Structures are given as structure tokens and as C-alpha cells.
């Protein structure tokens, strides 16, 4: 096992890795920029190194130098930028530092997503059809020609990474360049690489991903599959495992395909093979994510396998030690991404200081977050700040628990998408598990309205609120609005 692990990440991924290392009894080292002085992962770590700007915790050379300095024999890149950084991984390997993530040999095969499709196609699996190469937004003519060749609708995808950026569908040529520009800007902001590629869209479809674990000696198991179809504002928001609506034969087929495809790429540790499944249950390979994914807690709930612990153990060279039959998938797990944004105001990001932070509890409810009462949600980083995961012995039980947990979750000081999630999980299509890619675009069914008596109660509260407003002669600064811009944003159109 490792002597010491350095975390080259921040926020929730860093908290998750600190926890896994502590559970394994491995000392853990954090890197932080000045803004993160008060961050949870920094305080939970055994050692913490300040990174002074302009250097960044994502700077490969700096991470390697600090690993040497503090005596770490492994680096955990979390599930972000450095987790799929070929040069960084290669340099670490040369320096004798283990990267707890994909090796350079695997990354070379998976980062070229178009070549990866070809590799899988040649092995005899159905794949989606992609453009012949990646593009920058200024290649207008070539982009239009490629989209025509693939046939509309097409999907615009970032060449690097994914990180919850959902797929953007283009249905007509007039919209192509706008969507490409937007996707490129998002990819630039997150990965520093603006290139995008096109994929012929399979619509309507479901987005099914199979997480796997592999050791260095050829043992490889899948951990069921997840459905991450549901998006809002072009980002994944709800994931469930196992995927609803697959027949036993389809389920077995997609899991079996994932195992064979992962072998084609020499995946080690934790990885995920992603598919789209059409209305007939036919699956098409899309890409391999050779790393841990944001959604892994949904899988941990149904398998009771600590994926991060296993990933660290496998990276240290230990054998897997269990077989496919030992992986038992029980019940249903749901995972919601809680974002700092205002879904009622065009998903405007809502950074700021968290006031009250009440997390749901009780049996089979889990919250992964870097946030706490008084924590700062920074404008510099993405808006995902918490993940709510629940488990139930069956889908119905899990649904009740998900609704219950979303009702318990209460946060002030910033806006969140919790109210929208509550509405989503009450939608008939979601309850039935019959949703597909169209769910992400259509209007949500209004939530079940309380009866007349409840409306009467709310009328009483509204009247008191009105009088309180009239009476409030002295200026007040309630906690819910201390971040300031809320007051100003009242001027924005509705």
C-alpha cells in the first residue's frame, strides 16, 4: 500500500479522496490556493501545501514537484482535469509516482475519442457515428459539411473530458455554429481545450454507463449500470442505478459489452464505458471514461463497494480479490447533483456564502459535499457543490426516500436547483422510469398541488409577509440575501 497520497484536486472530489485514504489509514496531503484556505478538504488532510498564484493546483509540474517534496508515492487526480492528462501521467510514471487513475497507455487509446470508436467498431460492437476529426469553432464550412454527412440531428461534444457537461443536440444547420461556439467555450473554460467533435444523434435514447474495476493482472468486473439520461440546462442532474427499462437480456448484453470494451483499452482501476441505448434497446458505444466518475456514489449504494478505496488499492498493485459473482447489485440508487444556480432565472449561477446548511439524514441517505454552514461557494469553479445519493430495496422505496431527502435538504445564502429537483422527481415519466432523452427538453409536469386548505394556509403566510414588508422600516439583511446580488437581480426580467 502507498505511504502517502497527494491529492491534485479541490472541492468535493478532494473530500471524497481524503475520506477514502483515511478509511485505508493512508496519510493524505492536500494542495490549496489562497481562496481555499477555509476549505473542508484542506482541514481534513494530514498536510496541506499552499499554492501561490499564478501557480495552480492543476499545474502538472507543480504537483509532481510537491509530491517529491512531501514524500508522496501516489497522486490522486480526483475526477477532473488531471485525471485524463496524458503528459502529466507520463511524467509521473517516469518519476516513479503512481497516478491513481488511468495509465498513459490506456489514456493514449481513450483520449482520441474518434479512434476509440473505430477500435470498438472493429472489435464487432455497434458504435455511434462520429465526425472524422475534432474541430475549432472557426471551421464553419467543414463543420457544416460534416454535420450534413452525419445527418441531423447531431450532437456536439467536447474533445476533452465530460464532467457533467451534457450533450447538446443540434436539429438544424442554422443552430450548428451557435451550439459549437457555446460547447467550445464551455470546454475551454473547464479543460483549456476548445475543440469539439460531432456525433450522429440517436434519438430518442437513454444514456447508459457501465462502471468497472480492473486490477493490474487481468481481473475485471462490472458494477451494474447507471442511467444518466436526465439533463437540465445541458448538464446531467439525476443518475440512477441500475438503469430502468432494460430487459434482462439487454442488461446482460450491455454489461458484457462493457467488460470486453474495457479490456480493449487496457483499463486499470476504476473506469466507465458509456453507451446510448435506442428505443428498441439496441446499444451503441460512445466513449470510455478511464477514471472514476462524479456519479460513482449511485453505484456504491447498490453494490456496497467503496469505489475510491478499491481504486486506490488496485493502483497500489493489489489484486482485485473478488470475482463478478461477488458483485451483488441490490435495490436502486439515485444520485442528484445539487448546483448553486437559480433554475427559475435561466440557471444563473449563484455563488456566495452558505448560511443555513441542513443536510438530509436517516437510513440510506448520503450527501457528498465540500459545503458546510459558512462555506464559500466560489465564482471561480463550477456550480456543482453537493451530491445527494439515496438507496432503496426497490425503485419505489428509493423514490420515496429521494423525495423525502430532497424535502429535508435546506440551504440559505445561495440559490440551488433543489426546488427543481423536487419537481423532477414528481414527474410521471420519472416516477415510471420511462424517461428518455426527450425528458431533458420538455416542460416538467407541475408538482402535485396541495388541496384548497393548504392554499388557504399559504395565503395567511403571504398576508403576514406583506404586512412584515410594510412594517419593515429599518433596513434588514436577512441571511438568504446576504450575497447581495439577489437584491439587485430583482431588476432582471422575469
Amino acid at each position, binding site marked *: 500500500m502507498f505511504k502517502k497520497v497527494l491529492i491534485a484536486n479541490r472541492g468535493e472530489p478532494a473530500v471524497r479522496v481524503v475520506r477514502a485514504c483515511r478509511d485505508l489509514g493512508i496519510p493524505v496531503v492536500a494542495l490549496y490556493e489562497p481562496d481555499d484556505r477555509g476549505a473542508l478538504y484542506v482541514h481534513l488532510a494530514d498536510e496541506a501545501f499552499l499554492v501561490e498564484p499564478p501557480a495552480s493546483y492543476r499545474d502538472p509540474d507543480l504537483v509532481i514537484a510537491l509530491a517529491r517534496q512531501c514524500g508522496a508515492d501516489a497522486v490522486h487526480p480526483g475526477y477532473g482535469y488531471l485525471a485524463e492528462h496524458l503528459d502529466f501521467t507520463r511524467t509521473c510514471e517516469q518519476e516513479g509516482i503512481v497516478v491513481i487513475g488511468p495509465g498513459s497507455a490506456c489514456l493514449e487509446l481513450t483520449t482520441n475519442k474518434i479512434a476509440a470508436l473505430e477500435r470498438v467498431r472493429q472489435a464487432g460492437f455497434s458504435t455511434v457515428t462520429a465526425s472524422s476529426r475534432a474541430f475549432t469553432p472557426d471551421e464553419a464550412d467543414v463543420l457544416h459539411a460534416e454535420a450534413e454527412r452525419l445527418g441531423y440531428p447531431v450532437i456536439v461534444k467536447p474533445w476533452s473530458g465530460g464532467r457533467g457537461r451534457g450533450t447538446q443536440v443540434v436539429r438544424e444547420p442554422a443552430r450548428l455554429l451557435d451550439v459549437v461556439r457555446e460547447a467550445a467555450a464551455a470546454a475551454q*473554460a473547464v479543460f483549456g481545450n476548445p475543440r469539439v467533435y460531432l456525433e450522429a444523434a440517436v434519438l430518442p435514447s437513454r444514456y447508459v454507463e457501465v462502471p468497472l474495476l480492473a486490477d493490474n493482472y487481468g481481473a475485471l468486473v462490472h458494477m451494474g449500470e447507471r442511467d444518466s439520461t436526465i439533463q437540465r440546462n445541458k448538464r446531467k442532474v439525476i443518475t440512477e442505478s441500475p438503469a430502468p427499462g432494460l430487459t434482462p437480456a439487454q442488461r446482460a448484453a450491455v454489461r458484457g459489452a462493457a467488460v470486453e470494451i474495457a479490456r480493449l483499452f487496457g483499463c486499470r482501476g476504476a473506469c466507465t464505458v458509456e453507451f446510448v441505448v435506442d428505443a428498441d434497446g439496441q446499444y451503441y458505444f460512445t466513449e470510455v471514461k478511464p477514471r472514476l466518475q462524479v456519479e460513482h456514489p449511485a453505484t456504491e449504494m447498490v453494490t456496497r463497494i467503496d469505489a475510491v478505496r478499491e481504486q486506490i488499492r488496485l493502483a497500489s498493485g493489489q489484486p482485485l480479490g473478488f470475482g463478478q459473482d461477488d458483485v451483488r447489485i441490490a435495490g436502486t440508487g439515485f444520485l442528484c447533483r445539487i448546483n448553486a444556480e437559480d433554475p427559475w432565472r435561466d440557471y444563473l449561477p449563484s455563488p456566495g456564502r452558505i448560511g443555513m446548511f441542513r443536510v438530509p439524514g436517516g437510513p440510506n441517505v448520503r450527501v457528498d459535499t465540500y459545503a458546510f454552514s459558512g462555506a464559500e461557494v466560489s465564482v471561480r469553479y*463550477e456550480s456543482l457543490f453537493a451530491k445527494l445519493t439515496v438507496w432503496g430495496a426497490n425503485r419505489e422505496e428509493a423514490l420515496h426516500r429521494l423525495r423525502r431527502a430532497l424535502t429535508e435538504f435546506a440551504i440559505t445564502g445561495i440559490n440551488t436547483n433543489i426546488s427543481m429537483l423536487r419537481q423532477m422527481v414528481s414527474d410521471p415519466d420519472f416516477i415510471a422510469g420511462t424517461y428518455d432523452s426527450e425528458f431533458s427538453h420538455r416542460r416538467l409536469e407541475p*408538482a402535485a398541488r396541495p388541496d384548497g386548505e393548504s392554499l388557504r394556509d399559504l395565503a395567511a403566510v403571504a398576508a403576514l409577509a*406583506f404586512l412584515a414588508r410594510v412594517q419593515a422600516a429599518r433596513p434588514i439583511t436577512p441571511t438568504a440575501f446576504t450575497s447581495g446580488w439577489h437584491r*439587485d437581480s430583482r431588476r432582471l426580467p422575469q
Partner: protein
Amino acid sequence: MSKLHVTIEGHEFVVEVGALPRHDEPVRVTIDGTPVMVSVSSLAGPEAIEWAVVGTHPYELSVDPDLRWIDTPRGRYQIQVRDLEATVARPRSGDGRVKAPIPGRIVRVLVEPGQPVQVGQPVVVLEAMKMENEIQAPRAGTVSDLHVSAGQVVKLHELLLEIS
């Protein structure tokens, strides 16, 4: 005694309330002639209301500072409150200054000085939290002053442009 007309999702109620208590004590409220005791977390202002117990029914909720909606875990309700005895309508802020609703970086400016704009028309794209956000015109008019350019980093509430 105040007599208020409250509309929630199209349902109308007449709510009568005596003087508000000094401290956040339960208040006796009459709704359509039926009295009920109401406790709220605070009467300091609409934003301070985080929970309420109306009769025997507990609620967690938040109220829009401008009293346009109430949020509960079951959804968002459009509300309208009118005091029939008051003659002055509540003021609406409606000036044409567009300020940064969040700190961030200007990615694109979509309008030019002198250009006519419609309500809701995107005028600036602001990047924050790794997302591009369209800032929309709060009212129709003509762009009279443009204070920012692409690439510029702006602070919270910084004036971006003015519409007159």
C-alpha cells in the same frame, strides 16, 4: 386591522390581520371569515420567513422579497397581495441600468451603443462558475452607454450598460 386580498395560483382569499406583534409571537389571522393562529419564524420581512405553522399544519417555505411567489418543498406558487385600503401601489424598480448579477468575465458584448433592444434580449454574455450566462435587457429602449468590453473582468453589481 388590515384587510388584504391574496391570490394564489388563481384562488382568491380575503385575509384579515390585527396589529403585528412586536416579537415573533403567534398571530391571529382570519381567512375568509375563519380564524386561525399562525406562527412564522420571523416577521422582520418577507425574506426572513423560513417556516410557518398555520393551525396544525407546518410548512417550510421562502417568500420572494417582492412578494411574487412562495416556495415550499412542493413547488413554487405565484402570489399577489393587495391591500384594498391602501391607495399607493407598491413601487417597482425599473431603471435601465444593467449591472453584473454575479462577478465574472465578459465573454461577448451583444449590443452596440445606440442600438434598440427589446425586453429580455440578451445584451452581454458573462462567464462565471465555468458557465456562460446571458444577461438580458431589463426593459426595452436604446443602449445609451456601454461600460464594458469582451474579456473584461467585472465585479458584483458593476455597471455593464445603460438602456434609456
